[in-house]
Structures are given as C-alpha cells and as structure tokens.
C-alpha cells in the first residue's frame, strides 16, 4: 500500500493548479509528433486570428454592455429620487397653503362667532382643538430621548444597513411603550420628533424605519410630553415604562435621557377628516362642563391627574402657543 500523499485532502486544488493547462494541448501535440509533424502549429493560422478578433470583440462588448447596465440602474434611481423630492416639495407647498387658508378660516370664524355673540362655541372649539391635538401647544413637560446603541450606529453593518432586526436599534414598539407610559403618567400632549400624536396617530414599523403619522423618523428619537414636569418625571420614572427603558439601556446599550423643561412646544398635528364617525348630539364635551378652564391657565388645581378619564381630561398645562392655525379639514 503506497503511503498517503500529504496533500491528498486537497486533491481538488492540486488538480486545479497542476492541470490548469488544457490537457488537450499536450495530447494533440504528442499525436502530431507521432505523425511526424512538428509538435506545435503556428499561432498565425487564420482560425486563431479569427478567434482573437472574436475575443477582443467579446471583451469590449461585455464591458460596454455591463457598464451601461449599471448606469441604467443609476438613471432609474436618480429619476425616482427626483420624483420623490419633487413630490415632497409639492406636498410641502400644499401644506403651507393649507396652513395659510386655515389661518384665514380661523380668523373668519372667530370674527363671525364673536360678532354673533357665540363665544361659548368658540371656547368649546378651542378646547376641542387642544385636546385633539390639531393646534400647537406649549407648556412645561419632559423630553425622553432615545437613540440607537453606538454598537449598531458605528458597527460594521452601519453603512449598508441590515435587513434584519438588531437588538441595539430603537424599535417602533419602544416608542409605543414610551408614548403609552407618558400618557399613563399624565402627559397632556405628546410629539415624537416634531410629529404630534393626535387621536388617530399610529406609531409603526415599516422595514427599518419608524413611522409616526406615516412620516418616517430619523434617529435620535425625541419624545416631547407636556404636563406637570415634576409629576411626570417621578411617575414616569417609577412606572413599568421607566424600568423598561432602564433595561433597554442596560441590556442593549440604547441611550435614554429624560429631562424636564419649563417650556416645551408640541407642534400641531394633522387632523384627518372623519368620514364614517358622526358626533352624537349630546356627546360633545364642552369646556364649560369640565371642572377646569381649558387650555389657558396653569394655575389650576392638579385636576388633570392620570385618573381623569381621557375623553374629558381637561388640558391644564398645555397652552395654545399660536393662534388656531390648523383646523379639522373637511
């Protein structure tokens, strides 16, 4: 029995390296020698020259075709990006028009209602606007700032993005928990990265992006909540949400910062028109029926504790920061 070759396990590689020349050359050459011909032919035979032409042609055609293939992809990409930005600009311009028109509507409505002496309706309206989140409000409150963990941001996959979920990324569920925790702790108005949470807002995941009101957010995620800053901070910190954030920070390296502030602003949210829902005649909460004056003073008793039912929760600390610029669109 012959001894094992040391490179027996690499037979495939050895075969590839040593047998890299077409064995046909050696065989054909040997056959020609046996027939009495020289062991090789000239390289200038028409056949070889013709195939040299073909090879050159093939190389250039491939290079041109494959390069133009990538440029087609890039063209399509640039075109799509152009369409997106053009439509975003158009959308922004229309939003500006809407804001201007709504300011006109609000001014005209205030004038009409004031002239007809129906100031009760006006104050009810402004109360509803504040609680439904269609006007910007300001007041004391806290901000909760979350960011992706630095491992994920600076990691090897950061540049190209990952298709799978990474534990170090802030997920939509985290923001949902934070928003729910803040509502539970007595927040009166919440916005996430400048997107106001209204009665119809959704926080959800689309691929890698977090959408609030169908607007994609970019990190860091700043959740602004307006309410009694001190009470919010204590009850939020001691709530299950607070310990959830703590575990996010400890286990996944997601930095969480909670800071109180004397003056914060939540921008106006977008109110979607209600198509199917109609109000019952006696179901509209009026500002006069609630125990505190809505949307103006912050000197009232702490009636807006979390125990108050949300549907009629008077908004004591969130004050309108601007004249009614946004109104329910129909």
């Amino acid at each position, binding site marked *: 029995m012959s001894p094992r070759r040391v490179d027996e396990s690499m037979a495939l*590689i050895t075969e*590839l*390296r040593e047998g*890299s*020349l*077409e064995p*046909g*050359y*050696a065989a*054909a*050459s040997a056959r*020609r020698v046996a027939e009495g011909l020289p*062991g*090789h*032919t*000239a*390289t*200038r*035979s028409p*056949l*070889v*020259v*013709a*195939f*040299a*032409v*073909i*090879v*050159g*042609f*093939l*190389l*250039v*055609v*491939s290079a*041109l*075709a*494959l390069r133009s*293939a990538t440029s087609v992809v890039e063209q399509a990409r640039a075109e799509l990006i152009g369409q997106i930005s053009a439509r975003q600009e158009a959308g922004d311009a229309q939003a500006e028009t809407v804001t201007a028109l709504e300011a006109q509507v609000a001014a005209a409505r205030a004038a009409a209602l004031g002239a007809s002496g129906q100031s009760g309706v006006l104050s009810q309206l402004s109360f509803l606007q504040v609680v439904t989140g269609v006007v910007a409000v300001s007041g004391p409150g806290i901000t909760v700032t979350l960011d992706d963990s630095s491992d994920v941001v600076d990691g090897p996959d950061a540049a190209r993005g990952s298709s799978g979920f990474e534990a170090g990324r802030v997920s939509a569920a985290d923001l949902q928990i934070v928003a729910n925790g803040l509502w539970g702790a007595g927040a009166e108005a919440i916005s996430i990265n400048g997107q106001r949470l209204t009665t119809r807002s959704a926080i959800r995941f689309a691929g890698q992006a977090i959408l609030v009101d169908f607007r994609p957010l970019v990190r860091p995620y700043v959740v602004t909540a307006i309410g009694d800053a001190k009470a919010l901070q204590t009850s939020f910190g001691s709530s299950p949400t607070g310990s959830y954030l703590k575990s996010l920070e400890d286990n996944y390296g997601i930095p969480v910062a909670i800071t109180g502030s004397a003056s914060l602003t939540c921008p106006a949210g977008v109110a979607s028109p209600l198509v199917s829902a109609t109000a019952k005649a006696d179901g509209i909460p009026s500002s006069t029926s609630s125990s505190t004056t809505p949307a103006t003073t912050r000197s009232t008793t702490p009636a807006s504790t979390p125990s108050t039912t949300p549907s009629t929760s008077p908004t004591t600390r969130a004050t309108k920061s601007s004249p009614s610029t946004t109104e329910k669109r129909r």
Partner: protein
Amino acid sequence: MIPAIGLFIGVVLGLLLHPSVPLWLQPYLPIAVIAALDAVFGGVRAVLDGIFVDKVFVVSFLSNVLVAAFIVFLGDQLGVGSQLSTGVVVVLGIRIFSNVAAIRRHLFKA
C-alpha cells in the same frame, strides 16, 4: 504577434460597432468573458511551452464559453444562478492565475 493584432482589431470593432446586447444575453457575458480569458491564457501558455495546436485552442475556447453559458442558464432555471456563476468564476479564476504564473515563469524565469 498577429493574434495580438487580431485582438486589437476586435477591440476596435467592438468600440466602432457598439452593438447593443439583448437583455436576456447579459447574464451570460461576464462568465463568457472569464471563459474566453481562460482559453486565451491557456493558449499563450501552450505557445510558450511549444505545444500550441490551433484546433485545441479553438475547441477549448468554444467549449469553455458554451459550458459556462450553459451552467449559468441551468443555474438561472434552478434558481441558483449566482451561486453557480460564483463557482465557475472560482474555478476559471484559479486556472487563469496558474496559467499566468506559468507564463510569467516562462517570460521572466521567475
């Protein structure tokens, strides 16, 4: 020398004619180019070894290109086109490297 001129003529022809390759043919181009390069370097090495036979060159060139194209086609049909393409590139790449190494030894004795 004359085949090199032929190669150059082919390059110029390709640049001048600039034919548009149909889309269905494009996946086969990279593999065909690698196969052609393998045949060319094999031929050059055979010339230097003194055992070049034109018929073997032409047949090996054609069969390399056809087999490579067939493998890509088969892979596409089976849904593993990119993996098979990678396999072809690896095998032909190793052959090209060792042929070029042999050519280098011939030319520079190093």
